[in-house]
């Protein structure tokens, strides 16, 4: 219940924050909304020496459209995304996924940046980021770079962020016309985390066929992944019940699924196919 001792600094600029991180290297952790980190610290599973709280940095919490992209500040809360009328219009996958994270209180305080940087294998955002082909902007004392979502999730609780880097912004190409999206998940009844979560963003051609599809899946493996085989099967396909089911059946091709008390690997794989089918169906409506 009680975290171990640590030092705490709340810089007011991103420059200051990255300087602190490079200075303290191994010992520092970034505190965003705190809804992944603080629970781990309370169980003493995480015991950082220094917390760099980026919550006081102005201008990290926003949702805006720029350069053909949706840009979301890393400190934007799940609730801000869930309740954005504009996002519901242009990229409904984001509010839909946001609204299924944790619970009301968690969504009020937890942030998209914090969740992505934590890379929990059962978190919801990674699936959405993958399906939306997001670019994650990382800032360090050396400058700024973009990391494609597909490269960002490296393993269980491990991302491509390097030491001293802070995730500052999530950039998502504004979905084209005739884009359909959905996020559906099977929630673990105790934790609310995804046993399986499937994010789909697909574009239909004028005839209603699937022009391209992106499918991100979380909860199944040690990290979220793009279901390439599903996407391939959907490309150019007519979105009828049979085609969708056939495509969704590839949801875990080549994937080593996790098993636990609640859901075996076999069942998770099956659920992934079911939820992929349902999410594609919902997205194609």
């Amino acid at each position, binding site marked *: 219940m*009680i975290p*171990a001792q640590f030092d705490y600094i709340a810089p007011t600029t991103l420059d200051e924050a990255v300087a602190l991180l490079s200075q303290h290297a191994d010992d520092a952790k970034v505190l965003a909304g705190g809804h992944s980190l603080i629970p781990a610290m309370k*169980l*003493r599973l995480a015991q950082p020496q220094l917390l760099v709280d980026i919550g006081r940095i102005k201008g990290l919490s926003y949702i805006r459209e720029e350069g053909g992209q949706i840009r979301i500040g890393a400190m934007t809360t799940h609730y801000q995304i869930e309740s954005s009328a504009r996002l519901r219009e242009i990229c409904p996958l984001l509010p839909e996924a946001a609204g299924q994270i944790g619970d009301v209180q968690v969504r009020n305080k937890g942030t998209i940046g914090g969740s992505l940087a934590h890379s929990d294998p059962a978190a919801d955002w990674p699936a959405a980021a993958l399906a939306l082909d997001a670019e994650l902007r990382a800032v360090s004392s050396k400058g700024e770079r973009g990391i494609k979502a597909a490269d960002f999730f490296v393993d269980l609780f491990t991302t491509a962020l390097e030491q001293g880097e802070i995730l500052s912004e999530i950039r998502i190409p504004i979905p084209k016309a005739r884009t359909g999206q959905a996020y559906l998940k099977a929630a673990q009844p105790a*934790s609310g985390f995804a046993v399986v979560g499937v994010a789909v963003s697909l574009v239909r051609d004028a005839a209603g066929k699937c022009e391209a599809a992106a499918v991100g899946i979380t909860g199944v493996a040690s990290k979220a992944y793009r279901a390439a085989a599903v996407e391939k099967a959907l490309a150019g396909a007519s979105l009828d019940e049979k085609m969708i089911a056939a495509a969704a059946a590839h949801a875990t091709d080549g994937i080593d699924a996790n098993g636990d008390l609640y859901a075996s690997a076999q*069942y998770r794989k*099956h*659920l992934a196919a079911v939820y992929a089918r349902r999410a594609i169906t919902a997205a194609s409506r």
Partner: protein
Amino acid sequence: MAEKYVGQRVKRTEDPRLIQGLGHYVDDIKLADMLHVAFLRSMYAHARITSIDTSEALHAPGVVAVYTGQDVSSKIGQVPCGAALPDLKVPDHRVLATDKVYFVGHPIAAVVATDRYAARDAIDLIIVDYEELPAVIDVEGAASNSTVIHEHFGDNIAYKLTAGEGDIEAALASADHVVKQRLVHQRLAPIAMEPRGVLARYLPGEKELTLWSSTQIPHLMRTQVAIMLGIPENKLRVIAPEVGGGFGSKLNVYAEEALLGWIAMQLARPVKWIETRRENIQATIHGRGQVGYIEIGCKNDGTITGLRYNVFADMGAYHQLLTPAIPTLTGLMLSGCYKIPAIQMNTTAVFTNKMATDAYRGAGRPEATHVIERAMDMVAAKLKMDPVEVRRRNFPTPEEFPFKTATGLFYDSGNYVGALDKALEMADYSKLRKDQAAARKDGKIIGVGVSTYVEICAIGPSAATPAGGWESATVRVEPTGKVTVLTGASPHGQGQETSFAQIAADALGVDLNDIAVVHGDTAIVQYGIGTFGSRATAVGGTALVLALEELTKKATRFAAHLLEAEPESLQFEDGKFSTDGKSVSIQEVALAAHLARNIPADMDPGLSATRFFEPKNFTFPFGTHIVVSEIDRDTGDVKLTKYVAVDDCGKVINPMLVEGQIHGGIVQSIGQALYEELVYDDQGQLVTGTLMDYAVPKAAMIPWLELDRTETPSPVNPLGVKGVGEAGTIGATPAIVNSIVDALSPFGITHLDMPLRPELLWKIVNNAG
């Protein structure tokens, strides 16, 4: 008595403080100079402690003291077990582990520090060397396991017991069919929302120890802790302040309660310990934990001939207060609400490297009800009869009460068919069956489950309990006319402050708001037993009725004296004694009784009465629950689409409180049926050790509950009440499981063990092995 309040939906008098956050639970009480205690607990299920080094912890900032088992085991007595059974093995149970640890969470050392953060920090500085031993986890294999937990016992068998009456062999032999089934009652965590907590203060001058503890049984705890600490019981005061739920988990005397008292005496400073949720799941008692084998015999017409239940009961590593007694309650209730001529239960109670099991809401009766209600459905399936008809065929009629069972009980009163018919009508059962048939044709997986249950409440009588089964009450009318009620049945959410005030207000003709119901403080309240076993109203409420009657008699004599009339000539109505146009109010009588200037010469001053009620029998509430479930063919997800419950708990003091008890009980049953399970792995590690893994039902998982009642008064007490605290947890679980088994019957399923997780159901539907 005029019933102005009794029977009404009276809003609770407890609530104003609680909805404003102004109640005081243990952790809300702070004393000057108070220290905080944290525990180092075993990370192993079974290990020898080869050394403990506390030196670094002792020198950590804020640390005042560190105690290990070596420091305290000769100073503090055993953690008590109140259950007595023939040849029961009772292990040494010290407040801290000495040479061995027996379960994950077993307390090893206590750190005392100036604040809770410092105490927690110092825990990490204690170094324990363990020699790990094999863990005994499997309940059925424990008896023959070569690893013996308590070595001097020679094996892991705590006791063996055969119970029941009738010739079971002949009964099963005479049956047309004998249905057999293995059945598991998984371990559950009670999860009262307030974890346990203790605050202890010792006054060296007065030699008085006070314990504030989140307990259901302040008086019993006082007696036991006084014995453990070797201090006079009249120098120990136990206060149960606001108690944030118990469900049986606080019907106990725990190591921490005695140890905190001892530490306060050592240091002469107040000390507080508040359990974390992880500690709560590890080291507060668990419930259920039985693996059993049913054999039930029936005739072709559905008549039950006999029932045998051979069960392995998981005690855990030690006995807590009632651990070994819980399976005996299962044995008592195996007859359910049916006429079964022969019943036999053979219990093998075993030690395992887990936390002790004990009384979790229902305490042995949910297991019994699950056995008999699953068995009735299996009989119905075997005979291809409607499960309702099988039940109906075996009910005793209302005229057959008191009804004697082959488990040695006399059921007080009942109208089982009445509750059943009402529930069938509410649920429109015949339509449900038609709808089910139609839905099955559409490929849907829908089930209808019924459970008709009876349970045993109002625990006492004393002869059947380890520490007295009576209850006490005092009623005082103060000089200003305000009424104080003291009850020994200390509540923890049930609302006795309201329901007991309703009873008293009607009896005395006073306003409800003029009554204060006081409980939970052994220095204020006369000795009492506590709130558990759905006994508070039936036993404690009856003690209150007796005290009110006695007080009214006294008041009548005072009033007669004041009115210069014969007591027999007085009418007492609406709080006024009157005769011949003259009257005096009870408030005036109370003042006169206290002033004592004008009272009968043979009467003592003051207006109060204390009475104790010893019940002659238990009470036996009953009812019918009907559940409709639908299973998602693709995922195995279960949705309960209809829930109907008709419960009969005898006469009702406050219908709102009764419904609340039923709601809560049913939802705990839904938890057991679908979500909850404490899982230890082969090494004895607790896999479900936080609320991230142990699934307590949330609001969105619960269907709308349609409730109604029938009312069959109990002849056992003058109120006619039976008790309702555990009914929901007892009646609901089998109805839910029966519903899901019914849904899956086209797949050849006749039984499933809980919790019914989606994966299990999906595998059945999809034959995925």
